[in-house]
């Protein structure tokens, strides 16, 4: 009886979220396709890319022609000087980018660039012509957006950074709350604890113990648990309406993969390095070839981790958005209804993918660590 009672609201919440997600997307697309023929011709690609990419403001919803956005702080480290702005300073009332304090947001790739005197007055997105011609001008950044990127360090709290903080905040609340229950002494799990405990036990028994070994897994448990829940939380947050696509961002997945990479290398035992530099059982003449393969192998691991997570999450978002957008592109209500229903199914699959990708990333991390800490007693 108790189970049924708790299951039902959960299902309700999930379906509500899915509905909200669909509505939020459709209205945004509606606005996007409304604003000009340009997007329609592009087949909604701009709209999809805009949703997947990072942003300097948090766009919640568009009601008619009103964009509901949360402006986010922008931090720029420019030649030893930290500058703070609000992203709302960089947009005019029509949501077109404008120059502010010598910087402006490039309309094409969303990057913050140095604004030129002549450029700042303009609406911003008509600079296509200058793009290809003046690429090699390093100092004169008059019209070239791409050149300015390495000139200053952009540490803005973008939508993804804000989402990162949000997910960290949620994780801290969840797990420190759960941890309190364990400090009270031995008791049967209840509430949130019963939801997370099986997952924690699964990561400990079936991921860490199996791949790293009974005697060494303990040291890596905090890392594996943090990794798993960080990816899981951000995958699921990415599926909620209006949220950022943090775990589908290549900078994030690269950072996570590099952390795994460094943990693996720093914990590499004699057997691990011996296996790379003098692979046992290989004749001496072949060793240089194997060495090259092994060294490449060290670096393909983080690359595969980076790309797998990035691609699966981003691809999922693209699929959902494409199906939702189909109705608007084909201008058909029928396609819209069918597409929305289909996108619900895809979103459900995406929830599954969110869990699987978190599991896979953790599993591979533990396998790499397991190989590194192995004593070589086969």
């Amino acid at each position, binding site marked *: 009886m108790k189970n049924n009672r708790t299951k039902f609201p959960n299902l309700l919440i999930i379906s509500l979220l899915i509905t909200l997600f669909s509505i939020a997307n459709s209205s945004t697309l509606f606005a996007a396709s409304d604003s000009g023929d340009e997007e329609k011709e592009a087949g909604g690609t701009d709209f999809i*890319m805009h949703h*997947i*990419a*990072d*942003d300097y403001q948090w766009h919640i919803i568009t009601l008619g022609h009103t964009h509901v956005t949360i402006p986010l702080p922008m931090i720029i480290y420019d030649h030893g000087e930290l500058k703070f702005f609000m992203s709302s300073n960089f947009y005019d009332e029509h949501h077109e980018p404008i120059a502010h304090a010598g910087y402006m947001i490039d309309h094409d*790739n*969303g*990057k913050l660039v140095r604004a030129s005197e002549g450029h700042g007055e303009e609406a911003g997105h008509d600079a296509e012509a200058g793009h290809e011609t003046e690429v090699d001008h390093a100092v004169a950044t008059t019209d070239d957006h791409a050149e300015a990127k390495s000139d200053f*360090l*952009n*540490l*803005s709290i*973008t939508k*993804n*950074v804000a989402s*990162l*903080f949000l997910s*960290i905040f949620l*994780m*801290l609340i969840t*797990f*420190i709350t*759960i*941890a*309190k*229950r*364990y*400090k009270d002494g*031995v*008791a049967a799990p209840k509430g949130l604890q019963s939801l997370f*405990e099986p997952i*924690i*036990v699964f990561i*400990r028994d079936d991921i860490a113990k199996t791949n790293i070994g009974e005697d060494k897994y*303990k040291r890596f*448990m*905090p*890392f594996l*648990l*943090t990794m798993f829940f*960080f990816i899981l939380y951000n995958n699921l947050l990415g599926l909620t309406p209006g949220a950022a696509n943090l775990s589908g*961002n*290549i*900078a*994030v997945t*690269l*950072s*996570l993969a*590099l*952390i795994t990479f460094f943990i693996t290398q720093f914990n590499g035992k004699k057997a691990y390095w011996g296996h790379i530099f003098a692979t046992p059982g290989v004749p001496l003449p072949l060793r240089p070839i194997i060495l090259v393969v092994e060294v490449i192998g060290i670096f393909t691991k983080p690359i595969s981790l980076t790309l797998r997570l990035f691609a699966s999450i*981003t691809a999922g978002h693209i699929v959902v958005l494409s199906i939702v957008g189909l109705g608007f592109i084909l201008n058909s209500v029928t396609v819209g209804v069918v597409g929305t229903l289909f996108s619900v199914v895809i979103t459900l699959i995406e929830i599954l993918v969110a869990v699987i990708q978190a599991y896979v990333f953790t599993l591979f991390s533990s396998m790499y660590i397991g190989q590194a800490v192995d004593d070589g007693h086969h």
Partner: protein
Amino acid sequence: MDILTPDTGLFIFQTIAFILLLFVLGKFAWKPILNGLKEREDTIEGALLAAEQAKKDMEALSADNANLLAEARSERDAILKEAVAAASNIVEGAKEDTGKITAKMIEDAKSVIENEKRAALADVKTLVAKLSLEITEKVLRKELSDKKAQESLVNDYVKDLNLN
């Protein structure tokens, strides 16, 4: 923003935030959670082992009890047997003794009766003799009042004496 180019700012934030998260959660969440889980598992395992041990103990105890009971029973049987034997011995002995005593008593009684009888008979004899004497004396006195009678009597006696 180009989705395939890692953004430097986000990369820096992500790396620092993740490492901080790792340490904060490691200290305040994973450590107590993992320790608590271990403690609970140990407790459960201990409890199960203790239950198993208790069960075994109970089995051993009941086996002991059965042994004890059987021992007690056999002991009781032995004691009962002994007691019965002792009782029958006693009864036998008592019977024998009683028989002897009775026989002796009967013997005694017989001899006493015999003695008494003899004494009584002796008394009777004496009394009879006395009475006979007295009667004889009285008869004699009366018979011998005349002279003839006396002479015939003496004659009879003399005759008897001669015959003897």
